[in-house]
């Protein structure tokens, strides 16, 4: 059905079935005595290189190769010297750089010298007469195919698997069940999630402390337009809670707006213009830590989801879908900021059971 115009193989072709059409049809359609295709003119004449005809040139090439190999040896010495010259006991940045550069450049010379020498040797001094090797079709001959098919048939017959369907059925069943235990064993690589993806350390009465210095915050410490990164009090390395795991859910920010700027929905959980939000991105969990005061936008540096602080951290652009959950806040008896409840939503990335 397709018109395939064959290449004309040159004289050394073999009838291997490797013609472009595969079916091996060679149609001799000649118009006016002319062949259908041009003939392959064959390998062009070999042109000798300088080193092939000029003894001096060959000797020069030999010297160049030897110089390359000698430079490699020099490189090895540079590396060894560099190793002993700079000791890295409490190094300064300059010492580290010197050590890295000396050892590295030495290694470069070692390797590059060998490489360039070998390639130059091959290109200038080794024979460059192009040689021809014939291809053989990958496909086997019909006889070999028939033999192979017979062997497989005999093997299957001798196993008796066709005559004894019970064996085949039971083996199939066993093989189908066999992977289950293996998969089951993998189940203990971790616990079930339970409710832990929805919860965080924030709850009523937990103080807001600064991240990273863990000091409590007076409401008056925060001015309009400034932002403070916060953690729940009591979250410390080696403390009763797993540190990074809880931090990955509880990291938050608190910032102060003009009281009248606070969105209607956020107002009940704010405290005199102070509003707090989870800073764990509802897209993929990065830290939404870039605050642009002029547009009152929180921006996630990973995928640029933008959240509008004046609109209860609704998504205004980017791949996130859910707003950042608000953290309800108030002050305790000492005037320090405390959570007045848990986060008003699930912090971090969405998951199937989220709903």
């Amino acid at each position, binding site marked *: 059905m397709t018109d395939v115009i064959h290449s004309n193989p040159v004289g050394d072709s073999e009838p291997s079935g*490797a013609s*472009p059409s595969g079916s091996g049809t060679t149609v001799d359609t000649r118009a006016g005595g002319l062949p259908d295709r041009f003939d392959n003119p064959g390998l062009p004449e070999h042109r000798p290189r300088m080193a092939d005809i000029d003894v001096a040139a060959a000797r020069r090439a030999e010297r160049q190769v030897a110089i390359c190999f000698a430079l490699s040896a020099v490189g090895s010495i540079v590396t060894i010297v560099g190793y002993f010259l700079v000791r890295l006991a409490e190094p300064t940045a300059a010492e580290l750089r010197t050590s890295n550069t000396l050892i590295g450049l030495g290694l470069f010379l070692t390797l590059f010298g060998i490489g360039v020498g070998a390639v130059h040797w091959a290109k200038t001094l080794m024979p460059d007469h192009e040689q021809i090797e014939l291809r053989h079709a990958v496909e086997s001959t019909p006889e070999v195919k028939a033999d192979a098919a017979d062997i497989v048939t005999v093997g299957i017959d001798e196993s008796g698997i066709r005559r004894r369907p019970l064996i085949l059925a039971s083996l199939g069943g066993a093989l189908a069940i066999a992977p289950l235990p293996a998969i089951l064993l993998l189940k203990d690589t971790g616990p079930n999630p339970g409710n832990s993806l929805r919860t965080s350390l924030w709850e009523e009465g937990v103080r807001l402390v600064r991240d990273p210095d863990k000091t409590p915050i007076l409401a008056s410490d925060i001015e309009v337009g400034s932002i403070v990164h916060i953690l729940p009090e009591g979250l410390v390395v080696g403390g009763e809670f797993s540190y990074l795991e809880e931090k990955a859910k509880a*990291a938050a920010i608190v910032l102060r707006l003009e009281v009248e700027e606070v969105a209607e929905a956020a107002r009940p959980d704010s405290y005199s213009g102070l509003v707090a939000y989870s800073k764990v991105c509802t*897209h993929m969990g990065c830290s939404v830590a870039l605050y642009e005061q002029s547009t009152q936008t929180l921006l996630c540096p990973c995928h640029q989801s933008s959240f509008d602080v004046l609109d209860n951290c609704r998504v205004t652009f980017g791949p996130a879908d859910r707003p950042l959950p608000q953290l309800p806040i108030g002050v305790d008896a000492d005037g320090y900021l405390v959570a007045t409840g848990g986060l008003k939503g699930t912090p971090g990335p969405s998951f199937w059971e989220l709903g």
Partner: protein
Amino acid sequence: MTTTAAAPRAGAPQTTIDKLADFADSRLGAAQIIKGSARKIFPDHWSFMLGEVALYSFVILLLSGVFLTFFYVPSATLIEYDGVYEPLRGQYISEAYASTVDLSWGVRGGLLMRQIHHWAALIFVAATIVHMARVFFTGAFRKPRELNWVIGVLLALLAVFEGFAGYSLPDDLLSGTGLRIASAIILAIPIIGSYMSFWVFGGEFPGEAFIPRLYTIHVLLLPAIMLALIAGHLFLVVLHKHTQYPGPGRTNQNVVGYPLLPVYAAKAGGFFFIVFGVIAFMAATIQINPIWLFGGYDPSPISAGSQPDWYMGFLDGSVRMTPGLLEWSIGGYTLSNNILIPALVLPGLLTGVLVAYPWIEQWATGDRGEHHLLDRPRNAPTRTGLGVMGLVFYGILWANGGNDVIATHLALSINDITNATRVALFVVPPIAFIVTKRICLGLQRRDRERVLHGKETGEVFRLDNGEVLERHAPLSAEERWLLVQHDGYTPIEAGPAVDANGVRRPGTALQGVRRRLSNFYFGDSVLPVTPAELAAAHAVHQGHEAIEATDDVQHNRPAITSDH
């Protein structure tokens, strides 16, 4: 040495080399192996070195990686740092991060090895992908090499995973943020996502289980699979013999080039050292991933302008591009299409299309023959157009992975850039296809023109009647051969929709699809000049009138029909 080994026991081995040869042959059959392969012919072309660069980078990764394992501690346990790098002392960081900082600052050559490893990884993935592009654009994936193409696609995919795994092991702020994103992708998987995430991380993210697990995957599981695939890849190269570019003397039935011993032993062996040398030079002079500046992983802080390694960029870009409104809440469950589509479906589809491509094209050509001569990209205009379309599609995703950096450097709105790439992703690749295909067809027509009319000489002369003409010199047989050697394809023709008895033939709908596909590929093909056309052109030339190298010509040529 081979002669002695080939005729053992003919006389007692004389020299030490003879004895060694005899030892090897009588135990390994070495003589037969040497006889069969040591003078094997390989064709020469610079583009064949791209795969070599990938292979050698992989070897360099194995070597430098082993060195790193001697010092790296795969543990996410937090410790109070007390190592050689003063600014971090007293901070709580993971043992993985601490050991990576210490091997960079306190081990001579440690930083160099880390930088060699990282540069080699970037070059490995880059060389793999450029090598793939070379194979694609020259049609080297055609029969009998389709399976080797599939192995190559799998290797490229694994290379990206392996790179990401390695990049995540230092457990610094940047790589930990990358893992946070990986955990979110797992969480987004419908039904089992949250369970899978807890299994993978051994509980809540980040946990202490993941770093050691990732280490095993990075140094054992993935390298072993990749090594096996590479072995298979190379075995098939030897089995099929290397493809070669067309040229005088080169046919579909031969390989023209130089023997393995000594030429390629020296050239390819030397090239390994050159690649290693260049990577060592980069590691010595160009800083990469200075993790001590980033700090250990902590979910709270983050740096602006966070960028993953380049090969993750296209995924990052596709995730950045996808609007959040694709996250759906259905019947009490959440389907995070805003993550699933760009991070899992898209790369899955790309891989699927790449794997299937050789058979798609084969279906369109109906050509089931073996192909050992490479195509000049212009001679496969549709394929070349599709390839460029794919690269442009990939490039737009990749560019959007740096939309924040572009925005800050060019003082543009990041939302505008993102919106622009959202549109460009669907508009620009088809344009790239059309433009590329037209360029290819134009080049093919120019080739025809050159064959029919010869080369321009710049010599202008005037006839008695006043007509001014330029003298054209005929091409030599060698010059002409390159322009006429390729196979021309025309679209598959439809068989009758009903058979001789008027019964509708089965599978006609599918054949219709096939016909349309074939027409898409070859509907406007430009066929190579035939000797008859050249003779006709010469005859006309006697009267100094040009014959146009247009499509009309192809219809006058004798049709050759084969039965498939």
